């Protein structure tokens, strides 16, 4: 597992020449893919959150909202993640 992961991560440095311009479609994907993939992974994290069972899923939704607002407001990664995770833990452990 370690070997395969390491190989895949070093592969781009092996196949592309440092000095040369990258192919246009690679630079395009480098710009367009990250926002799409981050959206995909956020949906993946919330795959078991049922919007139809709001009584059970509200802590996730509230804390996602908190993380979003905090990051929009302060743009401090540690603060956004820390505060929303702390709030989530408090809700899950003390209220539910």
């Amino acid at each position, binding site marked *: 597992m370690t070997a395969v992961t390491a190989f895949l991560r070093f592969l781009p440095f092996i196949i592309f020449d440092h000095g040369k311009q990258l192919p246009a479609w690679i630079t395009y994907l480098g710009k367009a893919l990250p*926002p799409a993939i981050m959206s995909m992974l956020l949906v993946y994290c919330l795959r078991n959150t049922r919007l139809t069972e709001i009584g059970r899923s509200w802590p996730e939704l509230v804390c996602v909202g908190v993380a979003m607002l905090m990051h929009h407001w302060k743009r401090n990664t540690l603060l956004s993640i820390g505060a929303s995770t702390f709030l989530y833990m408090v809700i899950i452990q003390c209220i539910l």
Partner: protein
Amino acid sequence: MKRILKRVFPQTIPVMAGYISLGIAFGLLLQSIGYGPLWAFLMSVFIYAGSTQFLAVELLVAGGLLPFDTTGIDFAMTALFVVLVVEQWKTHRNHLPAIAGFAVTIAALYIFGAERFLIPSLIVISVILMCMKGAIKPEESHK
């Protein structure tokens, strides 16, 4: 090499910040079930697989003691991706890729179910993005 590092390193800072908090969560989680810093370090170096490490923790929980209740700490991963989505939204002026990502993944979640929607989503997203290549010009996709 030094020149490349100088140019590339600043771009990795947002991701690094996310990983630092994820690392803290991972360390806390391991500590909470009685495995010390050395375990956390070795697992991070050798498993080196991001969220899979959190699954490994659940496997170790079998024989654990709990100094404090860590229920819900796994939300750190969701929070990380919320931050990354907001970060991407702010840095790219064209929001089509982000919107396509959400639309395709949510559709795939309903079609394929929660266990097997990730790979189809990835494929469809790549195809759609390649088809939109003409619509998103490089100079307008970045601030």
